[in-house]
C-alpha cells in the first residue's frame, strides 16, 4: 500500500479497504525501518499522526463527508511551523523551539484531514541545493545513498522516493521543490507566487519563497495543491482570486493544440548528455500527444543566477536578523556581565552554519550604503528584464519547458567547498522565482550514463498553474505507457532495519 499514489490510498480508505490509522502506522513503520539510512526526518510525531488518523477514521465511520486526501499521511518540510511541534528550519539556532501557532498551510491540511507524520530535513533556512547544509546532517538520496537528494527540500523529496510518505510539502525560493523532485524521480510544484500563503513559512527570501506540493504523481500534487492554495488574510502578498483548476487539469492531461516553448538558454552547454536526451524524448512524446513544440529565447536568463544571489541574500540578511537569542531559540554566552549584544553575536556565530553566514554577509554588503544601487538595485532591474523575457516568451507559447537541473544527483561532499558550482545547480529553476510564476518538475526517465532520475520542468504564466498540470499529466501518462510502471518502481530496494 505505501508505494501507491496518495489518491489511491484515499480511495482505499473510502472503500473501507484500509483505515487511516493502519496506513499511518505503515508509514511510521517504514520511517523507523529506513530513516537511519535516508535521514529524511528531523522529527517524527508518532502520537500526533495517529491521533489525527483516528479522528479521520472516526469521521469516515460517522459517514461525514471528508476531503479527497483525508487520512493520507504527509511529510512537512521543517521550514513550516506547526503548533507544538519542534521546528528548526534545519538550523541549530532554532534547536528545541516549539512554535505556538500553525502555518496557514498546516491549518488547511489539518482541516482537510491530512495526517502530518513529522518534519523533514532541509538545508539550513532553505539555503542550499543538496541538504548538506542542514545542521542535523545530510539526507541521502534513496536512489543512491552516497548522493544528495537535492535541496533545500531534500528531506521531503527523499521521503517520497523512500516510500516514507506519499505526499510532502516543500518550499521553493530558487528551486528547492523542483530540483529535489528532479534528482529523486518525484513530482514537485512551485505554485504562482501568492498562490499559497506564506504565513508560517520561515522566511528565507520573502519575495521569492513559495510553498508547494511534492508527490509521486502529478494528480497527487494537484490534489495537495488544491488543499493548500487560496487567499489568506494573514499574508498581504497572497492572491485574492480563485485557485486555478489544477485537479481538473491533472485528471484530463490534455495538451492538444497547446504550444510548448523550449527555452533555448536552458538547454545545451553545461547540461549532462543523459539529461538532454531524456528531455528531448519527452518533447517528442508531448508532440505526439498533440502539442506544438516551439523554441523561445529568454536572453536575460543568463543574468538570473547573479541577480538571485544578490536578492535572496539581501532579503535573508534582514529576515534572519530576528534570530538573536532574545525571544526564542538557543542562547550562547549568557554569563555574568555579558551584554545582549555579545550574546547575540556569539549565538549567531555558533547557531548559523557556514552557508547561512556567507549569505547574510553577502546580503548585508549588497544592501549597505554605497553599494545598494550597484548590487541590490541592479539585481532588481535584472528581475524586470527576466519578467519581460517571460512575458515575451508567453506570447509565443502557453507553457515553457526545460530540464529542471543541468545534471543528475551529485555525490554528497562533491560540491560542498565550491559555492559557485553548487549555485549553478539552480540555473534553470531560478528564473521562475524571479518572475513569481509557476514551475513544476516531473520525472522523465533515468540518465543512461548513471541510471539516475532526470527532471522535466514546466513553467506557466502567473495564476495559470493548471497549464503545468495539463502538460505534466500528459507527459506522465505517455511515459507510463512507455515504461509500463512508474519510474520509482526501478529504485533499488533499501535495506530494511528491523
Amino acid at each position, binding site marked *: 500500500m505505501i508505494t501507491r499514489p496518495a489518491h489511491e490510498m484515499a480511495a482505499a480508505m473510502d472503500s473501507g479497504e484500509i483505515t487511516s490509522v493502519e496506513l499511518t502506522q505503515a508509514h511510521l513503520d517504514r520511517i523507523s525501518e529506513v530513516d537511519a539510512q535516508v535521514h529524511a526526518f528531523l522529527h517524527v510525531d508518532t502520537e500526533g499522526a495517529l491521533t489525527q488518523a483516528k479522528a479521520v477514521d472516526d469521521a469516515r465511520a460517522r459517514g461525514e463527508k471528508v476531503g479527497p486526501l483525508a487520512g493520507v499521511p504527509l511529510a512537512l518540510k521543517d521550514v513550516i511551523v506547526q503548533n507544538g511541534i519542534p521546528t528548526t528550519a534545519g538550523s541549530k539556532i532554532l534547536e528545541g523551539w516549539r*512554535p505556538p501557532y500553525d502555518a496557514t498551510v498546516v491549518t488547511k491540511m489539518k482541516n482537510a484531514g491530512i495526517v502530518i507524520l513529522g518534519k523533514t530535513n532541509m538545508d539550513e533556512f532553505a539555503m542550499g541545493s543538496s541538504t548538506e547544509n542542514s545542521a542535523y546532517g545530510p539526507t541521502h538520496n534513496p536512489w543512491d545513498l552516497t548522493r544528495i537528494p537535492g535541496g533545500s527540500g531534500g528531506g521531503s523529496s527523499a521521503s517520497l522516493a523512500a516510500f516514507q510518505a506519499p505526499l510532502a510539502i516543500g518550499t521553493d525560493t530558487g528551486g528547492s521543490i523542483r530540483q529535489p523532485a528532479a534528482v529523486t524521480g518525484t513530482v514537485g510544484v512551485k505554485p504562482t507566487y501568492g498562490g499559497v500563503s506564506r504565513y*508560517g513559512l*520561515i522566511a528565507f527570501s520573502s519575495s521569492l519563497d513559495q510553498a508547494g506540493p511534492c508527490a509521486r504523481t502529478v494528480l497527487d500534487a494537484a490534489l495537495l495543491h488544491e488543499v493548500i492554495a487560496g487567499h489568506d488574510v494573514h499574508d*498581504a502578498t497572497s492572491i485574492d482570486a480563485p485557485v486555478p483548476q489544477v485537479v481538473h487539469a491533472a485528471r484530463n492531461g490534455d495538451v492538444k493544440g497547446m504550444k510548448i516553448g523550449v527555452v533555448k538558454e536552458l538547454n545545451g552547454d553545461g547540461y549532462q548528455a543523459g539529461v538532454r536526451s531524456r528531455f528531448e524524448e519527452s518533447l517528442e512524446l508531448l508532440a505526439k500527444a498533440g502539442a506544438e513544440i516551439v523554441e523561445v529565447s529568454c536572453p536575460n536568463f543568463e543574468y538570473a543566477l547573479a541577480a538571485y544571489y544578490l536578492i535572496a541574500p539581501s532579503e535573508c540578511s534582514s529576515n534572519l*536578523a530576528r*534570530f*538573536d537569542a532574545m525571544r*526564542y531559540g538557543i542562547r550562547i554566552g549568557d554569563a555574568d556581565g555579558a551584554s545582549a549584544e555579545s550574546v547575540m553575536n556569539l549565538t549567531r556565530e555558533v547557531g548559523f552554519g557556514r552557508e547561512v553566514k556567507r549569505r547574510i554577509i553577502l546580503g548585508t554588503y549588497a544592501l549597505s550604503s554605497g553599494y545598494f544601487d550597484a548590487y541590490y538595485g541592479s539585481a532588481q532591474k535584472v528581475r524586470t528584464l527576466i519578467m519581460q523575457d517571460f512575458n515575451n516568451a508567453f506570447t509565443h507559447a502557453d507553457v515553457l519547458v526545460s530540464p529542471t537541473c543541468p545534471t543528475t544527483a551529485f555525490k554528497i561532499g562533491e560540491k560542498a567547498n565550491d559555492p559557485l558550482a553548487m549555485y549553478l545547480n539552480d540555473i534553470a529553476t531560478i528564473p521562475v522565482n524571479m518572475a513569481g510564476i509557476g514551475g513544476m518538475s516531473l520525472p522523465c526517465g533515468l540518465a543512461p550514463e548513471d541510471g539516475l532520475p532526470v527532471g522535466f520542468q514546466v513553467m506557466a504564466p502567473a495564476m495559470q498553474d493548471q497549464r503545468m498540470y495539463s502538460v505534466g499529466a500528459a507527459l506522465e501518462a505517455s511515459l507510463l505507457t512507455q515504461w509500463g510502471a512508474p519510474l520509482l518502481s526501478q529504485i533499488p530496494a533499501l535495506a530494511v532495519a528491523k
Partner: protein
Amino acid sequence: MGRTSAFTDSSIGGGKVSLTYEDVIAKYEPVLGLEVHVELNTHSKMFCGCSTIFGGEPNTQTCPVCLGMPGALPVVNEKAIESSILIGLALNCSIAPFSRFSRKNYFYPDMPKNFQISQYDEPICVNGYLDVEIDTDEGVKKFRVEIERVHMEEDTGKSLHVGGATGRIHGADYSLLDYNRAGIPLVEIVTKIVPGTGKYAPEVAKAYVAELRDILRSLGVSDVRMEQGSLRCDANVSLRLIGAQTLGTRSETKNVNSLRSVERAVRGEMIRHAELLNRGERVVQETRHFQEESGLTRSGRSKEQAEDYRYFPEPDLVPVAPDAAWIETLRATLPEQPTLRRKRLQAEWSVPDKEMAAMINADALDIVESTVKLGADPTRARGWWLGEISRIANEQNVTIADLKITPTDVAEIVALVLQGDLTDKLARQVVEGVIAGEGTPASVIESRGLKVVSDESALMAAIERAIAAQPETAEKIRNGHIPAAGALIGAVMKETKGQADAARVRELLLGHLGQSVD
C-alpha cells in the same frame, strides 16, 4: 580662557557663570527641526490584530507577528493608513499616489524582528505646512513651519532595566522586555528646517507641538498624551552666526515629553551650543536626552559611527497607492481646523483674549464646549471648569478630563443655580460630591441635603431668633445703620447651614426691621 560652562562647572566657586539667552540670540541664529512621533489610537496594532490598550499586563497583547516569530507576516491596518492620510491632509501635505514600506535594519532587543517596518524614500505624505501663532511683547506673531514628510512605522517594545542604579540602562544587570507596545502604529511627522524664528525659537517649537497636538486630537487619530508617550518630540537644534548661510552642526534631543519641556529643551540646547561655539569648540552631532528635573540635556550616543540601516522595500507588504476617490472621501471627514474653531468659539462666547488663552492652556476647550452644548451659559460653564474644578484637579495632580465630573453634571449644576435651587456655595459642594464619586448632582444634593431653604416661614423664624439674640444690633438697623445687617444675616446663614439664599434673607430681615431693601 573662555567662559566656563554652567553645565559642567556650576558647582565650582559656588556661583553659575553662564551665557544668558540674550547673549546667545544677539550673536546666533537658531535653526530648528522637529520630529514628532504619534501613536495612533487604532484598536489593533499596525500589522496584527493585537490590542493597543495602554497599561495591560506584560506580554498579554502579543502574537507571532508582533513578537517577530519565525514565519509570521505583517498585514497593514487600514485605519492606520487612513489616519496617516488624514494627518497629511490636515497638515496641507500632498498625499503620495504611490507609497511603500521599507525595512530599517538594526539590532535592538526591544525590536522583535531586528528591523523596523517604516517608510523611507516613499512616504505616504509630503510637503505640507503648519502655521503657528505665538504671543510676544511685540504682539501676536505668525510662523509657518514647513512639513517635509509624514510617514508610518511601528513602535518598539518596552525594556525594564533591573539591577544597577534606579532602572537606568547603564549599570543594569539585565533587562526585562514587554512587547505589548511593539507594533503599535506610529506616525512620524518631520518638519523641514525652520529658520527665521530668531529669539522665538523655543516658543515656536512649543507652539508647533501644541498646535500639532490640537490638530491630531481634533482628527481623533491619537490620544496625544505626552505623559504616556503617545506623542513624543525630538527637537533638532543648530546655531549659526547671524547672517551666515551654512547651517551649524545640530544636536538631536530625544523624547521630550511635555510642551514645557519642548521649550526648555530648545532654549537649553541653544545656550549649550553657544557656549561651545564661543569657546571655539565643535558641536558634536549626537543624540541627547532631556532631563526633566534639571531642564538640561545629557549626551546619548554620538553619531560618529553613522548607522547603516540598509533600507530596502519591505517584501512582505504591497505598496499603498491611495486613489483620488479614497483621498477625497477622507478629506470630506476633516474636522474644523483648531485655530479657526478657537476663533469662532471665542467670538460666540465673547471670551476675552486672556481667558481664552487660559482655557486653551488648561485643555478645557472641548469640555467647556460640550457643557455649553448641553445648555449651560458659556461664561458660567467656563467659570466652573477653570475655577473650582481646575482647582480640585490641580490638588489631585490630574487633568480636568480625568475627574469624575462630566459636562452633563456641570450643565445641570449651572441650571440649578440659575433656577435658585442652589447657591454658588452649595453648588461648590455638589461639584465636590460629584468629583468624590457620590453620584449625579441630584443624588449628591439628596444625600448631602443641600437644597436651598426657600420656606419663608422657616427663614422668618430664624430671623426672629437672630434678632432676639442680638437686640442691640437689631436696634442699630432700625435706626438706619444698614451695614450692621451683616451680623444678623450671618447668624441666619449659620443656623440654616448656608442653605438659605443670603440675598433673600437680607430682604426679609431689612423689611422686618422697617428698612427699605436698597
